[in-house]
Every structure is written in structure tokens, then in C-alpha cells.
């Protein structure tokens, strides 16, 4: 048998998809920081998390990542993508780049992705649930209703989130996310 006829096949990279997910993670990270200052519900959710809280949301095995956590003053901050020197308290791992693309192109909501076994969480379950709720609110701020409906479990009614809070919050989150 000529073994050379059957060579090794190393995996190729998916640069475009990786870049797309990296941008989305950056936007979401920045938006979480902004929302924690603008929206009372997000602020409340973060206040229940421990002082040294640090979330790592990343794509396995070597995809993009983002860090969001509390700084020394207790303020929520987007802390970039580099894991060096950071001690995470909550690690949310998306199993692969394809799964991440499904989530970040809003073909699958976070809840559906979890039920399809696309996420691995290391850390407190309470914290993870809080982060999923925060992510839902951030998506409501960032995206129009027609897209957000696909991404969140339940789109809030007027009684749950007033249009004033939603639209003012949206403007402020966008301004803070891309400027401050």
C-alpha cells in the first residue's frame, strides 16, 4: 500500500467567520459596559455579582474571546480579548466557530444554543444565568425588534420595558459603546 496516497489533512482556519465573531464580541463587550451604566436593570444584575467578577466569553478551541468584569472600583468594564494575567470567575465557552456564528448571526437564541449543547459553562450557574439575562437586554438595546426576536427567549412587552427606556437606552448604549 502506498501510504503517501492518503496524506494527513490539517484543519484550515475560518478567518472571515472568526473576524465576524471577534467584532461581534467586541461590540457586545463594549455594550455590556455601556448598559451597566445606562440601564437600571443591568446595573442591578451586575450589583449582585461578586466584586472580583470576571466573565470570559470565548469560542473554543482557539477562537476569539472577550472579557467583561468588575474593576477595583466595582465598575463594570470591557477588558479586551487577551486572557494573559486574568483570573476568570465565569468561563462561557462556545464549542466551535460554527456554533458561534449561529449565535451571533441570530439564527439561534442563547437559550436554544444552550439546549443544543453548544455552550460549556465553568463557574457559578447563578452568575451564568445573570449574564444570559444581561446579554438579552443588551441585544434588545443593540438590535431592531425584528432581529432581536430571533436572538432572545422572549421579547419584552411594553409593560416590561417602556419604549422610553428602550429608545433612550439604545441611543446612550450606542454612544457609550463606541465613544467612551
Amino acid at each position, binding site marked *: *500500500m502506498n*501510504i503517501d496516497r*492518503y*496524506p*494527513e*489533512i*490539517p*484543519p*484550515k*482556519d*475560518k478567518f472571515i*467567520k*472568526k473576524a465576524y465573531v471577534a467584532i461581534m464580541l467586541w461590540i457586545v463587550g463594549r455594550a455590556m459596559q455601556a448598559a451597566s451604566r445606562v440601564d437600571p436593570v443591568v446595573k442591578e444584575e451586575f450589583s449582585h455579582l461578586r466584586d472580583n467578577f470576571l466573565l470570559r466569553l470565548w469560542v*473554543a*478551541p*482557539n*477562537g476569539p474571546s472577550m472579557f467583561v468584569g468588575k474593576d477595583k472600583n466595582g465598575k463594570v468594564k470591557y477588558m479586551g480579548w487577551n486572557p494573559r494575567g486574568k483570573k476568570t470567575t465565569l468561563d462561557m465557552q462556545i*464549542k*466551535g*466557530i*460554527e*456554533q458561534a456564528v449561529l449565535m451571533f448571526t441570530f439564527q439561534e437564541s442563547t437559550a436554544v444554543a444552550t439546549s443544543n*449543547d453548544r455552550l460549556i459553562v465553568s463557574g457559578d450557574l447563578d452568575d451564568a444565568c445573570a449574564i444570559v439575562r444581561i446579554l438579552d437586554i443588551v441585544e434588545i438595546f443593540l438590535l431592531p425588534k425584528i432581529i432581536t426576536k430571533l436572538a432572545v427567549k422572549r421579547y419584552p412587552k411594553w409593560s416590561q420595558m417602556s419604549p422610553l427606556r428602550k429608545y433612550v437606552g439604545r441611543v446612550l448604549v450606542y454612544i457609550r459603546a463606541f465613544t467612551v
Partner: protein
Amino acid sequence: MEHIYVELASMDARKPLVLASRQVTERGLTKKFIKSLYDSNVVIGSLYDEVYPYHYACISQLNDLVELFKARGCDSIIAIGGGSVVDLAKGVNIAVSNSGNIMDYAGTNTIQKRLKPFIYVSTGHCGGTETSNEAYIENRRFVSDFLFPDVIILDNRMITARTRQRAAEASMVALTAAIESCAVPYNNPMNDLYANVAINFIYENLLGVVKKPGSKTGNLALANAYAMAGISFSNIPPGIVYSLGIAIARDTGLPRGQCMGFLLPLSLEHRVMKNESIRGELLYALLGTEGYCRVPEKDRTSTSITILRQFVNDLGGLLPKSLKEMRVNKYKFEEYARQASEMSMKRVTQKDCMQLLDIAWEGIA
């Protein structure tokens, strides 16, 4: 399929040997498979796509693959497809995980230690042994719980349309396996659950797939049924139809599904003739709760046989009607009966096999 690398990592493997048939490659499935491993840590040690799909696994090819496995430093095996591809993958796994000649491990429970990680990717084909604990190599039967695939992948992208004939044959093998696996008195509820779902999926989807072979939902449901039938079948010795089907197919080279398909309703009728009971759960699996409750208890056996007979008839000319039509030699019946009785570990007697073969000679009227 994108989960494969996670599963491999959990078993401490990252360099699989991938086996497939030429047809699988021609249908573009290996390309899809390779793409699914992009951006992961898994390096495909080698992709061997020259396995004869509907042939038996032969020892020369197996030896070549063992050599390839070792030369490339692989640590796991992935089989894409069904039938001999999976048999060969299991054979390679036995050979690379154990020392000595592979034929020393033929028989039941001769393998004593855990094998390398093995993943089976279904393409909708069913030879009966893919998800089970057995393999046929050079027509020798290998049975061990270590032969179960560690992971079974059912992915819509990989399950493609087959010809009507192939769909019917594959389904008949799985249906036989499922029905016979719940037809023993010492069964357990878990096994029944697998078998009942398999029977139900085949009954509800096969005719649809035969009419419209491209049906994605139908083909996926059938692939699920094949996987579950294989698992449930591993827990009991083969029954009369399965053993006879294998014996005839082995000798004549005919597809197993053809041999089992028309023997199945005949065997149930044969059992009724002998006043042996048939479990009412068969009707439950075929018709579901409502249909099952609508039929009085005393009529459940006859109704299930009628339904099965009708089901096989509805497949039209896809299955043969008699052994005579299949040009099976009558003088070999005794040999088939002996082999079947041996394979079933005496669950069926040679006398019963001979009676069934005699009925099957003239076949379905």
C-alpha cells in the same frame, strides 16, 4: 458534526483515521466532513475512501489500514457510511488495540480491553451492525461490547437520498433487528423503548421515503431508527429472521434486507401457527397509543401481523416474494438452518428454521 472535535478531545484523541467508501466521496460527503473539522485541533491522520461499500470487510484491506493507522500515528477511528465501512473500522480498531492476529478475536466476548475511540457518522445506510456491538470481517462474526461506537453522529447534511431499493433493504434489516430484539421474554424496558421507537419511525417514514427518496425529514427519521435498532439489537441474541437472513446473504451474496424483508411477516405467522405469543407492544410501536387502545386485546397479535404484511406489500416490487424467486438453492436449507441456529446461540432451533424456510420457499401469496 462540528461537535466531533469536542468528543474526540474528551476521549483524549486528536488524530483520527477516517474511513469512507468511494460513493461517499463522490456524493461530496467527505468534503463536508473535512470542512466540519476546520478551525479545530483535530488533524485527520488519513482519509481512506476506497472501502467497497456493499461488500464484506476483507482482511487484506484491513491489514493495509492497520499499517496506515500506525504509520500516521493515529489515535482514533471515524467511519463515514455503513455496512463494510463500519465493519472494517471496527476490525482496524480491534487490530490496533490488541496484539496478535485479528482472527483470534472472532467470536463472542473475546476482546478483553477497551479499544481506541471510535466515531460513526451515519449517511443513512444500514447493514444492521453499524451501531451494534458486532462486526463481520471475512464473514467471521466478532461480538463484544467494546465494539459499540463511542459516538454516533446523525447530521442532516450527511444523510443523503438513496435509491428506493436501498432504503427498503436497509429499513428491513433495522425493522427485523428492532422487532426481534423485543420479542424475547426476558427483555428490559430500556431495550423495548429503543426498539419501539425504531419500529415506529420505520413504519411511519419508510413508505414516504420510498415515494420521495429525497425527503430530508424521512431520511433523518430512518437514520435515527437504524441507530436505535442496532443498539437495542445488541442486547439479545439474534432471532430467527436475522440469523437466517445473514446466513442466506452470506452464501448467496444477496442484500441482507431482501432476505429479511419477506421472512419477517412469515416468521410472525409461523409463530402464531405454533401458538407462541407475540407481544402486544408490537402493535403499540406500530400504531401508537391511540391505535393500540382501539384494538381489543385478543386481536392485537393478528392486527400487528396484518399491518406488517400490508406494510411489506406496500413496498411493491422492492422486496422478493419467495426464496424460489430469489433463486436460493433448496438443498442448502439445512446448512442455513444450522448456521442460523448457531448464530442465535440456540435461541432458535434448526427445526424451526427449516419450517420457516419451507414456508418461505413458496413465499407470500
